[in-house]
């Protein structure tokens, strides 16, 4: 990014932080966490610690960073190197990223750029550049409204599992728009804080529907029709058994058209396709019903995670708490930068919306845009200040 554009972004962020002091909720257990930030035009600075919110806020206003993070973990000594920090426990965190959903609309808005000849195109990243044959190609992921809606849907699935199966109170589940492509969910609860990496990966697998074996719903290799009638899960049972019982309604089997004989239908199906095929089908179904999360994030106990109420350097949007996720409109509620006009040169940009304004596709043009939109494009490297 060129200096002029960097300066604009930093200035915009500074302006925001300067006024936002009372809107930022101080992190819980602040002095036990590791903080880190990426300055505009710089690289990550980690292993920081703040005793008071005042100190942290001063950093935000002074540095106006591209990104600010803190550890989900609580440490004895947050500033020491990793193995000396003394891990005490950590929030249980989940990351939902639209890009991992691989929606069909990706090809309509994602962008790639050849690192050799600089060719830029919309669509899925090709194996090699059609212009020069280069294989080293960078991609730029974009989240359209459909993408964000789909990510929200995953978050809703996750929250339901957390509430029903894990018994976590709604008030303990903090849901945030990530500021870019998805949602972050954080649980600060004594119940889960001291779980280690392996235990967390079990939770990650559970919520995403990974690792389910047919035996857990009463389907064994040599199971007879009668065994299955007895053991298959019924609607209303808790956990994954109940969840799968619901999905069985939609399984299509010849000769079974209505909802009444679901158990018989599945038992018959098993008789036809037997264990391995049934297992495959079940695995696909479980993954579908689970939430698509980035497992690494949940599992890594030393992870630093974007700080709520701070701006995302790639969009200028806020990582914002969603009080009512169902109705949350990220492209409205997370937009906080001003609408003061700035002139930028746009290389290329897909159609997008911010607040109530819809922006058309731009291609190699000079335009005057509200600051919020200019930063939204500049953060992704699509626009520069002239």
């Amino acid at each position: 990014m060129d200096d002029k554009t960097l300066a604009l972004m930093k200035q915009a962020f500074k302006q925001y932080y300067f006024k936002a002091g009372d809107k930022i909720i101080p992190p819980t257990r602040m002095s036990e966490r590791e903080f880190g930030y990426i300055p505009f035009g710089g690289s990550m600075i980690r292993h920081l610690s703040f005793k008071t919110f005042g100190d942290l806020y001063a950093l935000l206003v002074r540095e106006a960073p591209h990104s600010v993070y803190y550890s989900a973990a609580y440490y004895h000594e947050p500033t020491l190197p990793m193995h000396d920090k003394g891990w005490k426990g950590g929030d249980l965190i989940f990351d939902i990223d639209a890009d991992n959903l691989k929606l069909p609309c990706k090809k309509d808005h994602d962008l790639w750029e050849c690192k050799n000849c600089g060719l830029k195109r919309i669509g899925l990243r090709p194996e090699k550049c059609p212009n020069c044959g280069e294989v080293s190609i960078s991609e730029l992921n974009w989240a359209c409204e459909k993408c964000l809606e789909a990510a929200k849907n995953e978050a809703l699935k996750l929250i339901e599992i957390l509430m029903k199966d894990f018994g976590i109170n709604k008030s303990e589940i903090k849901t945030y728009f990530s500021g870019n492509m998805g949602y972050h969910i954080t649980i600060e609860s004594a119940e889960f804080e001291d779980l280690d990496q392996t235990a967390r990966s079990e939770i990650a697998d559970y919520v995403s529907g990974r690792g389910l074996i047919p035996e857990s719903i009463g389907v064994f290799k040599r199971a007879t029709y009668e065994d299955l009638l007895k053991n298959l899960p019924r609607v209303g049972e808790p956990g994954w058994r109940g969840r799968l019982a619901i999905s069985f309604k939609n399984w299509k089997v010849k000769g079974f058209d209505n909802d009444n004989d679901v158990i018989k239908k599945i038992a018959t199906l098993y008789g036809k396709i037997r264990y391995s095929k049934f297992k495959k089908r079940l695995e696909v179904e479980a993954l579908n019903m689970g939430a698509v999360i980035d497992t690494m994030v949940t599992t890594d106990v030393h992870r630093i995670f974007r700080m709520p109420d701070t701006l995302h350097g790639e969009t200028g949007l806020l990582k914002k708490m969603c009080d009512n996720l169902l109705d949350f409109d990220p492209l409205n509620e997370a937009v906080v930068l001003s609408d003061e006009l700035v002139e930028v040169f746009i290389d290329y940009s897909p159609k997008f919306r911010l607040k109530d304004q819809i922006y058309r596709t731009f291609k190699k043009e000079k335009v005057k845009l509200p600051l919020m939109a200019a930063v939204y494009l500049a953060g992704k490297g699509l626009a520069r200040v002239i």
Partner: protein
Amino acid sequence: MFYKNIVLALLIELGLEDLAKYPFIKEAGEYIKKLNIQIEDLNHPDYINIIQRAKERIKDAINKRMVSKEIQKAEVDILSFPIALLIVRMCNNDYLASIYSLAEAIRIEEFLKYERKSIISHIFKTVLNIDVIEVLEDNLMHQFDYKIKIKEYLKRSTQFHELEWKLINRVVNQGYVYLKTHELIRLIREEIRKIIYNRIKNMATPKLPKVIEDAVSEISGMVQKLIINKERISSTLTPKNYPPCVNYALNTLQKGQNLPHFGRFLLSTYLLNIGKTVDEIIQLYPKLPDFNERITKYQVEHIAGLRGGRIKYKCPSCKTLQTHGLCFKDETCDEIKNPLQYGRVKSKNKR
């Protein structure tokens, strides 16, 4: 709720029989304390059958890998437990402490499987601080016996690698995991073993009365013989060109000590990679009673890529092994990044 707790407290009047079954619980300790026996008293002929029973416990552990469940006289059985611990302590042999504590843990597990629900809850609470909640008959989940908090489950279940222990393959509801009795009991074997093992390790070493001294030398003799036998076997199994980390894992296993999962993983991947068969590897695992050949076979086959995900696992790198504390570097190791390179480098250097 309060009322229910009182009823529960009344129900768990622990009889002498119970203390004999579970001599590691604090009530058994309190019972013994009340008897006010001094260590010198043990020389007295009155105590001869207690010392007999103590020795029997240890011999059972050595010969049968499980202390017998027979209780002839509850008082004798209760008292014989701390004396057995003392003898094992004084033998000062890690291998013995290991197999003995496992043998006691298995005995306890066998009793717990058929225990009254109130006693199970009581032991889980007082010994392990786990709240075990009974699932009532009229409950929707009546096919289960107990439920425990998810975190208590996960802290223990992750030591197992069979898929049935994965959280997703359990019935989970409102923060609890539902379990059948034998599953609940299986979860804590290793902890009980550790509790007994640590008690042995942390025991003071008092001046011993003659009877105990004699018992110690008798048992020590038995252990010595056992270890010589073991070493004879393991020396034929341990080619000189295995790297130190693999040899360490192998030795730990042969000594009947607990090898962490990652150690087993190293061993299996390494040996598979140098061309050993699944069966040859399973042979390396000692015939402990908790050794379930089927399960080990499954695990090794899984690693070999014959099962489950069909991923053939690679041997972990030296760096990874170092972070797991399983690396025991020697000079040859300086030149390598993966244990698999060790053999080649070693024979090259010799030439």
